[in-house]
């Protein structure tokens, strides 16, 4: 009950901020654009995929059309993923530092809630807010593809879950950074640094960090760091495979879940020990 109250307060806080509204507005604009852009038309030789009324593909048999639409959906989901990761983090990164600010944290912690509960309520609030945005976009896209291309494929709905899951993994890292630094801009900078530089360097460690040394211990440490952090790019690639109805690897999801649980736990431990 109290956790629910915390989630509700966090949602209200985010709703009061312009950033999450802008996120919803951008989603709406993209959906409108999509609704105007895509359509199919049936000819004797097969079905044509059209973009803004112009023929975009040669006439295709039904299965090929489905594959073409699915790859469009995968592209769209990829864009949504990038948008959510970049802008969603920006929109929600203040949740934990704001709650830990002097004068606010006193109010929360004087209530009969444990500190980890406060952190969990704030974390879930941000994740739920992002999920609402993602589901809005994905449902919209599903309806648009259904109406305009006559493909009612529930796969794209699943991508709402995977994208939110990926956000939730990354947000655990943000939560940890927020507890440690208690500073929104610094948390954002650090997590962007991880996303843009550290993450890709680690993922391509064979071609980068491994070249520094042949020492197995060094390489083990590099591997360790890689597996300690959520594997966003691996998850993104597998999410796209899922949308294309290809075989996917669940391991990055499991590993990222464990890693984000660890980050959240770390944040809770740091918070528990802090004097306010």
């Amino acid at each position: 009950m109290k956790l629910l109250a915390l989630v509700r307060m966090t949602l209200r806080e985010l709703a009061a901020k312009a950033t999450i509204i802008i996120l919803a507005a951008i989603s709406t604009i993209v959906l409108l654009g999509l609704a105007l852009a895509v359509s199919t038309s049936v000819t004797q030789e097969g079905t044509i995929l059209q973009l803004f009324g112009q023929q975009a593909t040669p006439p295709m048999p039904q299965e090929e059309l489905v594959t073409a639409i699915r790859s469009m959906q995968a592209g769209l989901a990829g864009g949504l993923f990038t948008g959510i990761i970049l802008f969603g983090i920006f929109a929600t990164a203040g949740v934990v530092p704001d709650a830990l600010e002097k004068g606010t944290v006193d109010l929360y912690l004087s209530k009969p809630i444990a500190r980890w509960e406060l952190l969990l309520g704030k974390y879930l609030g941000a994740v739920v807010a992002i999920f609402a945005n993602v589901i809005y976009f994905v449902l919209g896209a599903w309806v648009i593809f259904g109406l305009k291309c006559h493909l009612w494929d529930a796969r794209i709905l699943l991508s709402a879950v995977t994208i939110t899951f990926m956000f939730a993994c990354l947000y655990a890292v943000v939560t940890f950074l927020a507890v440690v630094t208690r500073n929104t801009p610094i948390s954002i900078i650090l997590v962007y640094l991880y996303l843009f530089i550290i993450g890709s360097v680690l993922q391509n460690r064979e071609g980068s960090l491994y070249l520094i040394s042949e020492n197995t211990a060094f390489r083990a440490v590099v591997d360790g760091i890689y597996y300690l952090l959520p594997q966003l790019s691996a998850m993104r690639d597998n999410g796209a495979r899922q949308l294309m109805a290809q075989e996917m690897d669940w391991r990055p999801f499991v590993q990222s879940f464990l890693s984000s649980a660890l980050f959240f736990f770390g944040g809770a431990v740091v918070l528990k020990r802090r004097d306010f």
Partner: protein
Amino acid sequence: MIAIATEQLSKTYVSGFRGKRRVQALHDLTLSVESGEIFSLLGPNGAGKTTAIKILLSLTRQTEGSATLLGHDVSSPRARAKVGFLPENHRYPGYLTGQQVLRSFGALSGISGVHLRSRAAMLLELVGMKEWGRVKVKRYSKGMMQRLGLAQAMVNDPDVLFLDEPTDGVDPVGRAEIRDVLRDLKTRGKTIFLNSHLLSEVELVSDRVAILDKGRLLKVGTVDELTATGERYHVGLADGLTQAFRTEASAKVMAFVEERNGLVVDVASIPELNAVIDLLRRHGIQIASVTKERSTLEESFLSLIKREVAP
């Protein structure tokens, strides 16, 4: 029944680069507050009053000692189930209205539904903010925030109320109203723990007052005990005081104020005066004169406090 008890509570804040800066905010604080009592912690800024409350609410962990709240160790969230708190510099989300603040924070205390709604409305009326319930708090003045804070502290119908400088920023009329609220709470059996740096704010409502200075408890007693009895002596010294004396004197809870040519001692009896003189002599401090002054203990702790507050 004991509502609040602390046992040799000490707190050292460690901060700065590699913990170089250390501040001992509390020093062996032992006190107990009966339920139904209005208990005040009085002392200058930096005395450690806020730290004491923060330890009791588990916002800060003590370095040593222990504390219980309504029979629970303060580290357990259960200790805070029937507790209300008005923090020193509370901040409410500006986008919420007064009513929404009370409902949101009430929900965090575990109350909900119709009960919470009616309670929020009742409390706003109690603190004289009925017309402001639907106004966003970003438009509130400092005094109004303080009233809202008081209402928020009472939202879960707490048995123990912690108020840190509750009349800060409130005009004289508002101060009197807040005192009325506190008296009313007392008649309903609530325990109130009040922090203030102003004697005038606590003497009118408190059952007992504890005087805290530099983290040490100087005296505890009823307002009458602390103000009516006792006498003041000026002890002239040939040289200054030694640090060893200061340490031992504050450990023995001797109330004295250092002056240029000696010290002003407040005592309840002649043997107490002689205990101070014995201690001075034991530390090899030369006494030049002992003069009785007229003033009461009240003035003494006012001066004790003013000494720190004055710019």
